């Protein structure tokens, strides 16, 4: 097991290194640069001034030189300074990562819980309920999550005025926020963000239930006259969880992708809105830090999934020997 963990950790570090290289090059390949963009916005096009400013940021150096300079700082936790605001990137990311993890965590928990309940209901109920519950995930998946966001804002914030429409706190609260206010601000973006993972989990759950229900041990249990509920709880559902754990990484990926949109719709001060702004402004250092943090979250979640799989499946924990 130790070797397995070491192997997964090592490969994760390699993935991160590869991701850092790819994102560094990719960001530089995007047309435009922060200096020309910013000076142009200020009405300055003087080529000499532009060149001097580019040089002052070190952006005139060859890409490999820039990459290794950046990487050597990143491994010490120094992401440099924003090319637009001049602020430390570490400070910007530190402020943004908390709200993102909060929203991501809430949406993950809600998505998983809702998806499991949904999938189990769709797996075991019969009649029209079953048809509706099985058709609904597809409907949710084809509706863009930002549309759901706009709809819930219109309904709950603008029309009913039950919940705040955007942000993480009310303007007057600032940093002095109550828990109740935080939860109130969290509800709508969580609803908008959790529906996609919930749908994925639901589909996977009822599909797996269908499969497991055909297994011999389940049919045998039924033939022995064991009550249906007991069969489901003791024999079917534990086996349903394994594929859901396996797809946990995919769910994180879906969450991250949608979070960028949802954070924007709800003006949520997380990494998503930070990245959108940084990409628009070609703020290389902030984009690089943001993507790397997302990559780390993704890799860590994959490691957690592997760990859970290890714990849940004895075949992985104790592989058969020849």
């Amino acid at each position, binding site marked *: 097991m130790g070797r397995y963990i070491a192997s997964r950790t090592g490969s994760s570090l390699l993935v991160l290194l590869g991701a850092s290289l790819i994102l560094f090059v990719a960001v530089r390949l995007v047309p*435009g640069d922060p200096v020309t963009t*910013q000076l142009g916005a200020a009405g300055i*096009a003087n080529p000499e*001034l532009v060149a001097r400013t580019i040089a002052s940021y070190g952006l005139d150096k060859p890409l490999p030189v820039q990459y290794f300079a950046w990487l050597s700082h990143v491994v010490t936790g120094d992401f440099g300074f924003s090319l637009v605001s*001049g602020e*430390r990137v570490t400070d910007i990311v530190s402020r943004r990562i908390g709200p993102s993890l909060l929203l991501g965590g809430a949406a993950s928990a809600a998505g998983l819980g809702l998806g499991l309940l949904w999938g189990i209901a769709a797996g075991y109920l019969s009649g029209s309920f079953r048809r509706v519950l099985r058709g609904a995930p597809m409907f949710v998946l084809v509706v863009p999550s930002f549309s759901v966001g706009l709809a819930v804002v219109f309904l709950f914030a603008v029309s009913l005025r039950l919940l705040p429409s955007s*942000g993480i706190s009310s303007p007057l609260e600032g*940093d002095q926020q109550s828990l109740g206010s935080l939860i109130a601000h969290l509800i709508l973006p969580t609803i908008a963000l959790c529906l996609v993972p919930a749908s994925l989990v639901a589909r996977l759950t009822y599909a797996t239930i269908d499969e497991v229900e055909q297994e011999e041990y389940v049919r045998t249990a039924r033939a022995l006259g064991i009550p249906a509920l007991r069969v489901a709880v003791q024999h079917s559902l534990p086996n349903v969880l394994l594929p859901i754990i396996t797809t946990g990484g995919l769910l994180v990926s879906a969450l991250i992708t949608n979070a960028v949109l949802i954070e924007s719709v709800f003006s949520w001060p997380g990494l998503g*809105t930070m990245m959108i702004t940084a990409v628009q402004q070609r703020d290389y250092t902030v984009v690089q830090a943001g993507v790397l943090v997302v990559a780390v979250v993704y890799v860590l979640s994959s490691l957690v999934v592997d760990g859970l799989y290890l714990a849940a499946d004895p075949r992985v924990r104790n592989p058969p020997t020849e």
Partner: protein
Amino acid sequence: MGKMEGVALRKSGALLRLISSFFVGSLVAAACAPATTTPGASASSNPTSTGIVASDKTFVFGIGQNPVGGCDGTQITVTVPVGNCPLLNQEGLVRFDEVTKSVAPSLATSWTFDGTSATFKLRQNVKFQDGTPFNADAVVFNYRRVWDTTFAANTGVKFPLVATIPIASVEKIDDATVKVNFKTARSDTMLLMTTFPAFIQSPTAVQKTTPADYAFHPVGTGPYKVTSYADASRFELQRDDSYWGTKPAAAKIVIVVKQDSAALVSDLLSGAIDASLAPSLEQIDQIKAAGMTIQASPSLVFYGANFNVTRAPFNDPKIRQAAEYAIDKESVTALSKGSAKPMYGAVVDGMREYNADVPAYKYDPKMSGTILDGLGWTLPAGGKVRMKGGQPLHIDVIQRTGYTGNTTLLTPLIVSNLQDVGFEVKTVTVEQALQYTAQGYYDINKWDLAVGGWSASIPDAGTMLGNMLTANWPTVGFNLGHYTNPQVDQKVAAAGASFDEKTHDQLLKDAQLLVRTDAPFLWIFQNQSMVAFNPAKVAAAPFRLGGQLDMLRLQLK
């Protein structure tokens, strides 16, 4: 200097309203006159205080744009940063008075200006918000920090707008007097001295931390202290009750920055904020129906399109004139719900140098057609595109992404109106971040018409024309269409060097006539700045003339 619309701000409607000039309207007597001594002033030397009552209330203001970092005026890239924060926190030796439309005393009580130098008498008993004294040493420190590259405090700091004020050196005469020497004698110098690069900040505070950190914790002499500046998405300013001048109405200002202006409208309607800048056109009816007040004020910001004069067809001024006549500028007023006013010439109506005698390019498609017919561009029977020598009258129109509000009207209007008179139009769209890059508008081979806007950082038509239409592009100015006319250059340069107001204005009026004939820019509309506010909380929300809410003259209920 003037500037084109920027990328740092996502909401283009808000964009030029925000990065625009500070001022509009009639101009500045003191600015043009050399050897003028402005009498000392006390009660009237900070923002005009009529009707302003200092209260203990908080004003919550929403702005829809991308956050632009920091509140240190000298380090600001765009002319007007989020919420105009430096104007609340810091002051220059002189300021532009929004009511009298003139350069007025601020941290200096009086000054003499002879064209190449200015001597300022400093206000006494003024302290920075950190309690340290404002004096000649502080002024020298600040100006050397920005303009003297050999000065220690200049190291590692970027002052992007430093070149906009031609300061050569600064000397302390005594504790209450400084002399500033300028590289060139320009009539707009004192106006330029009212802008951000010349703002004075606490030397102690500046040296206490790094430039990047300082930008988020600035310390000036202004009426508000920055108490919280979180990522420019929300920041707070607390009124400094020891402020030397008239205290503004709001005890506290909270500025909320969101990228989605619709979210701000929701906040306004739910009572979470008191006012929202630049509501989208689609939401104005909804805002009014909810009992909120919409207020529009004229600004110097204007929109239209640059003609590329380096290639056919717009290298011919007559075809540019035909295009000018083809555009129904009046239609914008109705569609923009009051946020735009038709514009017919190079200088915004309301500026002192505005020449009312310049014939307007009023909407006249017949005239447009006649001009094009006269040039041999004729419509074939049953055809919609004019032809000449077998070639269509084709143009490429370039625009950027991200337009909102009244600016969304620009390209459709240009395209449909030009098609109506027989142009074949192809539209090219570039990402907002690439607008002012070699992949965008800087590639003169890519377009014939470049949709965009313009603003001026000071209310001087000469400065604006000089930047917008200078022949020295790209070294100086922002003349995207590469227009040149030595006569215009000569008149604008002479106006810039003229300290006689009458001569200065006449030279610029003459230049407007020349520019009118040359038609280097397709002027379409002058922007009207808009704010939506809750009338239960706000009594008056005056604008700065460039389009920003003037929170120093705010009146609360």
